[in-house]
């Protein structure tokens, strides 16, 4: 098989549109006699094969399985009808989905503003030791969610008691508490990403605005904030994806049943219970795959909303 491979001439450094630039025929030394580009296969195949086998195939196959029953016959969308129609599944599904949105809302409303505030303070003029603060504040992010869950379970336990009201035991407080624990752990991520943007804003730009008479408030909303928007979008969509397949924290602190009375149940724990079973029900692979497909569609909608509604309207400025 002859595959035409052309060598890229990169005269312009850093231009992303070099594909299709001045191209030369491959292989230079073999003249017109083109050979199979073995080096291309050797460079690309290992990554492509592992990625396809252990990521793409399972995802596609899992979507396929949600259209079959456990004995392997094709049943169309029946599994989805069960998931959304039968109370045994539907009650749990809508509950988990709603809880997951609450979980995500806490991240958006607390994690992003706190992360931004910390990043702004870190980059404030005249602050020494900023890398020490940065290191310390990012530290919880490096820990396993399991460890963080147990740390807080231990601290909030009535025996040590910062608070005796058992924040993790009552259905009205358990989800906000778990959300805030997660925010405590991951606030370092928006902080570090906002920090990266803030230090990249040239001082001259701020200077010029100040000379023109803009105050700090005006400078933030007219210069800094527009520059932060692309990063804010990325952080929000990444948080959305992470939240909608979160599992470890709830499983660690509340177990697979996500009690009390499923008040801390989110999609990840619902998926786990459906697939592997629990004290109350046997595991069900077909329904497990169906829940996974539902999660896939939720995440897909989130990602598409980000790409079509947000990313298109946001201007990215080159500094």
């Amino acid at each position, binding site marked *: 098989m002859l595959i035409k491979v052309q060598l890229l001439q990169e005269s312009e450094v850093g231009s992303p549109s070099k594909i299709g630039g001045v191209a030369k025929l491959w292989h230079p030394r073999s003249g017109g006699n083109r050979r199979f580009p073995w080096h291309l296969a050797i460079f690309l195949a290992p990554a492509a094969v592992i990625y396809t086998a*252990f990521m793409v195939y399972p995802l596609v196959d899992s979507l396929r*399985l949600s259209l079959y029953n456990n004995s392997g016959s094709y049943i169309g969308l029946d599994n989805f009808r069960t998931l959304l129609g039968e109370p045994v599944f539907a009650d749990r599904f809508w509950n988990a989905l709603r809880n997951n949105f609450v979980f995500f809302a806490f991240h958006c409303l607390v994690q992003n503003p706190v992360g931004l505030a910390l990043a702004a303070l870190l980059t404030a003029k005249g602050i020494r030791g900023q890398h020490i603060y940065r290191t310390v504040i990012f530290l919880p992010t490096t820990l396993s969610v399991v460890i963080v869950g147990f740390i807080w379970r231990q601290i909030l336990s009535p025996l040590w008691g910062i608070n005796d009201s058992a924040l993790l035991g009552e259905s009205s407080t358990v989800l906000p508490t778990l959300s805030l624990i997660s925010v405590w752990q991951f606030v370092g991520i928006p902080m570090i990403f906002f920090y990266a943007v803030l230090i990249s804003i040239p001082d001259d730009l701020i200077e010029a605005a100040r000379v023109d008479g803009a105050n700090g408030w005006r400078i933030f909303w007219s210069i800094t904030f527009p520059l932060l928007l692309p990063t804010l979008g990325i952080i929000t969509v990444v948080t959305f994806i992470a939240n909608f397949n979160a599992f470890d924290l709830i499983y660690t602190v509340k177990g697979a049943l996500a009690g009390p009375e499923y008040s801390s149940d989110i999609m990840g724990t619902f998926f786990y219970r459906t697939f592997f079973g629990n004290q109350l029900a046997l595991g069900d692979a077909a329904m497990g795959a169906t829940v996974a497909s539902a999660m896939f569609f939720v995440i897909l909608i989130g990602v598409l909303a980000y790409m079509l509604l947000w990313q298109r309207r946001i201007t990215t400025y080159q500094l």
Partner: protein
Amino acid sequence: MGLTSIDRPEIPSSSGNGASDNGRETRKRRMLAIKKPRFSAWGIHFVLLAYAAIALGPILLIVFNSLKSRRALFDSAFSVPTPGTFDLVGYRTVFEQANFERYFLNSFIVTVASVLLVVLLSAMAAHALVEYKFPGNTFLTIYMAIGIMIPIRLGTVSLLDFIVDLKLVNTLWALILVYTAMGIPLGIFLLSQFFRQVPGDIKAAARIDGANEYRIFGLVIPLVRPGLGAVAVFTMLPVWNDLWFPLILAPEESKRTVTLGAQQFLGQFASDWNAVLAALTLAMVPVLILYVIFSRQFLRGLTEGAVK
């Protein structure tokens, strides 16, 4: 950041990148001397210190109390351990009841192998996708990037079947392969940005000198070292800290990673506070030590990845 180094005539190196980074910081600092701070520096320090205490406090509380006797744990929870309250009883329980050395070894093998594979395979693929024009290049680039957005966890039902078919259940290989697949999309995406900045002249000159394509790859690799670091940083922690795949693909006692081992142990010994605190500390300490040593490089890797 990378662009500044490319403006120079000589071959840019990663230390060159660091230097320009520092240059920017000193320049900023010099400007401060002229400017009057807008907010009180003390106020800012106060807020940052308060938040640092919120971040660090719970962790220190666990570490300190793991070194105390059972009584002191409850009587004086908020003080540092003293000779009077010092006790290693929790650690003794942990080492008698659980195989933490084994868990550490497993986590170490899985993490190192996955990170090395992700970095190597993504570098090879990213280099090829950036360097050569061939039919399907755009398709392959998009195909490999889809995985950044879609969590591999959603394929668990089929993945478990597949791993069972391959007879890899309860092996570290199962974890290594899955984590490698999981890390490759972001790895390729990030590294492509770095490879694009490598000057074409270097490669052209090497080709004129008769270097083959593998040699060229070896030549450009040192030029994207900050990118390799960033990919390693992004890959490492999710692998070390993951609970889901060890729980599902390799739950056997002898194959447990630290995260799963600690989770199982902590579930079993929930009422033994000394053991719980000791196990938590043991599971945290390696990450904490590594983080404290490499925090500068680590955070630089993150920010470099972030601005790409």
